């Protein structure tokens, strides 16, 4: 088992309690992004409260207590405050020290994506979710190095290719010269470009050498 590599989990939960969105949304509206912060509630003196902000369509019907912070281009940012609830999925993740990477609401479900440090942590979070939301669904679990944090990026400076090299490369690519089996051979691509076959080969070789020298160590 690969411990320590982290597991990216996408979980679907009801929007009703213990979700803080209980009573805020009717379930049909989509919410594109949720942000959250903890604040001292002025109304309750020293009781901890959670402030939630979300982005949704500007004409969303919302109950009293949910305020529009600002709107732009058909969308609006809304804000509301709820008392801390220790069964809330966000409180569960906080207690486990697990950061939430994305929260949305779609088709009446609260979709939370988070990154658990290891398998025991993931199990403990899912146990807590299941306890308060028996119909919790785990949509997706990813553990491979293809997660963005661990992907292997290189920078390709396309301006290193000459105009002519780019043109030859693009024409050859679109004609299927790089497919297997080939959609067009060197002679055919050269002809469509109006150049000699040997000139075509020189351009292609130079372009490939530049690109591959960047991609390969």
């Amino acid at each position, binding site marked *: 088992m690969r411990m320590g590599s982290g597991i990216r989990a996408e979980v679907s939960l009801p929007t009703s309690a213990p979700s803080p969105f209980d009573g805020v949304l009717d379930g049909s509206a989509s919410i594109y992004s949720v942000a959250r912060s903890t604040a001292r509630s002025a109304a309750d003196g020293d009781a901890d409260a959670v402030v939630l902000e979300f982005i949704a369509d500007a004409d969303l019907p919302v109950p009293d207590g949910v305020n529009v912070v600002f709107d732009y281009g058909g969308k609006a940012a809304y804000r509301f405050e709820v008392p801390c609830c220790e069964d809330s999925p966000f409180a569960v993740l906080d207690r486990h020290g697990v950061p939430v990477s994305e929260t949305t609401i779609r088709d009446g479900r609260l979709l939370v994506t988070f990154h658990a440090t290891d*398998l025991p942590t993931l199990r403990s979070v899912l146990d807590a979710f299941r306890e308060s939301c028996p119909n919790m669904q785990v949509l*997706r679990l990813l*553990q491979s190095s*293809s997660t963005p944090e661990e992907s*292997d990026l290189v920078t*390709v*400076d*396309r*301006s290193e290719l000459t105009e002519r090299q780019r043109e030859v490369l693009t024409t050859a690519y679109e004609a299927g010269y790089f497919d297997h089996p080939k959609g067009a051979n060197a002679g055919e691509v050269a002809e469509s470009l109006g150049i000699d076959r040997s000139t075509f080969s020189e351009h292609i070789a130079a372009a490939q050498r530049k690109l591959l020298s960047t991609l390969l160590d």
Partner: protein
Amino acid sequence: MSVCHVPVTMTSPRTHTFVCPECYREIEVDGAMRATLLEAGCVVCGAPIAEGDIADPQTA
């Protein structure tokens, strides 16, 4: 200067569909997570898992 970032991943992002024989939960997993599940059991109910509970890979 025009610059583009190319993710160089030598493994394709293929996923498998895992269906737990005990709790019937259906979860999409990648190759590394598949290996973890086979070793550790279902992440939700802890039931042991066999190769047959995880469908063949599909392109994500």
